């Protein structure tokens, strides 16, 4: 069975939800403490939401120097699937795996509500079969206002790196961007929380597609056989 690592930083608060979502879709969640210097054998790595290091300095700025992150960057470089949600997305931009930064929301308020997103861009391990769909997912952030210089925006748009886009922009993000991928499309970050909407009893099921996609992407013959964790 596929093994999916979920990293816990000091201040992460969506890690248990994320592990639960992973197991609901038939994968084995593997809890990884941020102090680990090497990843255990896993087929994908997920960075959860929360407030790592109290959001001090800038959101995600200190977490990116947690010991485990060097190996997460190596794993991503070998093509391993990496997903950052909310604070996890902020960490991935701070460490340079994803373009842009997440600024304070336009209007300053913490936004905690459902939003609609369209799925697009090039195929990623997290969006198989979702292209063209509109998903309803919850957001919960004060710093989700995606920003980059004009050249980066043009490149991200041109290379199919815009994976999720808000239907109605909740935070001032440029081009209503809610989630982006790296140029190789194996690393994805988004502000909304798919792991919170995987069961109808808690509000919705539109997040399930992300985990179903990951399960399909890291089937038994995938990365591990290629020595992704060698």
């Amino acid at each position, binding site marked *: 069975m596929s093994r999916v690592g979920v990293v816990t930083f000091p201040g992460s608060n969506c890690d248990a939800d994320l592990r639960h979502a992973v197991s609901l879709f038939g994968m084995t969640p593997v809890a990884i403490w941020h102090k680990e210097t090497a990843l255990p054998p896993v087929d994908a790595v997920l960075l959860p939401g929360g407030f790592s290091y109290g959001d001090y300095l800038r959101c995600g700025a200190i977490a990116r120097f947690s010991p485990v992150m060097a190996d997460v960057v190596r794993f991503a470089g070998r093509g391993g699937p990496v997903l950052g949600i909310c604070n996890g997305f902020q960490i991935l*931009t*701070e460490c340079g795996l994803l373009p842009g930064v997440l*600024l*304070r*929301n336009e209007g*300053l308020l913490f936004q905690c509500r459902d939003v609609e997103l369209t799925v697009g861009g090039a195929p990623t391990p997290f969006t198989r079969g979702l292209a063209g769909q509109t998903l309803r997912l919850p957001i919960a952030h004060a710093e989700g*206002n995606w*920003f980059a210089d004009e050249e980066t925006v043009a490149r991200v748009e041109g290379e199919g790196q815009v994976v999720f886009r808000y239907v109605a922009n909740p935070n001032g993000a440029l081009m209503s961007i809610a989630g982006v991928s790296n140029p190789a499309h194996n690393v994805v970050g988004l502000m909304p929380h798919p792991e919170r909407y995987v069961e109808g009893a808690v509000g919705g099921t539109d997040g399930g597609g992300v985990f179903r996609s990951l399960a399909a992407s890291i089937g038994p013959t995938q990365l591990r056989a290629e020595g992704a964790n060698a």
Partner: protein
Amino acid sequence: MRARVYVTLKPGVHDPAGKAVQGGLSSMGYAEVQGVRIGKFFEIELDDAALEPRARLEEMCRKLLANTVIESYRVELL
């Protein structure tokens, strides 16, 4: 040895918090305020024997204190 580091937003980067402070000052009657941008200020204590402190501080800025996608930095050695 002490150093001061100033981290400020690059021109063109939105600063919603600065805008809110500007609005506050305007509503207090400071009609002359044309704009406010918020940055960060660090006081850093260094070992007196530190070698190449300026270069090391600039490296600290690039790696952690500033996000150079949106911020500039300035180092003062005292």
